[in-house]
């Protein structure tokens, strides 16, 4: 089943080319909204509309079905399995960031959960040893290395991102050894399948919150852009990039 893999690879390569060409075409004009650099707003909005229609027709109903039919325990196990598969990336990226503690936590979790956690279906590392998940990705590594976030991008199926995180995601995909394991067996779909299921699981659980952004706000594109960007900066500890208002400087006369 190699053709399937190369198809997804060429899709990823197309992404990479798109992103790199996007990087080089940053001109002198600064398009900014609430401290977010978004020169590709027109294309991003088209992708946003595509994502919204896919969500409405496919993802939302599938997610609601998945979370209501599948028992919570199984849902959690599938999500655990998917998270465990990203452990090698987390360990490598922690090392690249000089975060030895993070690398140790990642190694401990991967070892425990892959063995006594039945190939990652369970999470004994946090249940019995209180070693909680530590996240790291190549986008974060680039941030630690001093790379700026670049232009805002909304990615098809994946939602809010930016040039730095898109490159990071591709690097994580191609450098994770588990992306290549079991190429000729049905097991090779387990990783991708569990990742999709994990996405459905969180779409279903936070259904009301996501619905209120996508379908009830006056401009869902701006809301997704603002929330996605701020939340990512918070994750990275890059809060200085956000705008801070001084409450004493605003004219509140008449309100």
């Amino acid at each position: 089943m190699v053709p399937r893999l190369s198809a997804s690879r060429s899709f990823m390569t197309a992404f990479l080319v798109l992103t790199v060409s996007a990087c080089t075409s940053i001109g002198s004009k600064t398009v900014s909204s609430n401290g977010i650099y978004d020169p590709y707003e027109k294309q991003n909005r088209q992708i946003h509309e595509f994502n919204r229609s896919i969500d409405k027709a496919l993802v939302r109903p599938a997610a609601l079905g998945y979370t209501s039919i599948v028992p919570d325990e199984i849902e959690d196990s599938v999500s655990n399995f998917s998270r465990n598969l990203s452990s090698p990336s987390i360990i490598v990226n922690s090392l690249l960031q000089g975060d030895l503690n993070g690398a140790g936590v990642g190694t401990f979790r991967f070892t425990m959960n892959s063995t006594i956690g039945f190939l990652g279906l369970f999470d004994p590392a946090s249940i019995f040893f209180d070693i909680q998940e530590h996240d790291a990705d190549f986008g974060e590594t680039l941030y630690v290395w001093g790379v700026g976030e670049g232009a805002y991008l909304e990615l098809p199926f994946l939602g809010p991102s930016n040039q730095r995180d898109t490159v990071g995601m591709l690097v994580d995909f191609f450098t994770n050894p588990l992306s290549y394991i079991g190429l000729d067996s049905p097991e090779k779909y387990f990783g991708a399948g569990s990742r999709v299921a994990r996405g459905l699981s969180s779409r279903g659980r936070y259904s009301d919150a996501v619905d209120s952004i996508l379908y009830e706000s006056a401009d869902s594109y701006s809301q997704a852009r603002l929330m996605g960007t701020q939340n990512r900066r918070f994750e990275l500890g890059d809060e200085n990039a956000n705008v801070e208002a001084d409450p004493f400087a605003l004219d509140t006369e008449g309100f």
Partner: protein
Amino acid sequence: MDRRYFLIGLTTAFTFCAAPILAITKAGAKKLVDSLVKDINKVIASGKSQEAMYSDFEKIFERYSDKSYISAYAMGVDGRRATSAQKRAFSKAFQSYIARKYGARFQEFIGGKLEVGSVKKVKSWYEVSTTAYLRNEAPFDVTFQVSDRAGKNLFFNMYIEGVNLLLTERTEVGALVDRNGGSIDGMISDLKKAS
């Protein structure tokens, strides 16, 4: 009296006055959020109907938040061309919209709780961190910003996992103004219908 003693006296008097005021603000900021969180937890645990909860949240908002600041910030640059009547109408509509919207969000907190953590001084205000514990979810961060701008300690903004809620609402209000072709009255009437 020697001028130097007078100055020393003045400085001492100033120090004595200033110290308690700053102390009140730090402890006061935490006290405000403690009491706010207690009231929110009470509503979450009450098991009341959705409508009753909305009105409870509106009362909490009324009591603990810097309403005029929040309304002025949310209206953004459009506030500069608004008439006094429009400002008043906007404040009223906006507060009830906030209670409905976040009241619905807080429903997801049923069975969970908020816990107050550390307090940090930022420029002229304080940030009080709280952690939200929801059933079957990883705990997440909710931060309240507290100032005494209006003469007493009130919260003027909150962040959920780094997302600035005031900025989110200003974006929403701006989009409503655009949708109404720049009309403030049109935006206010849309706000009354929004959930």
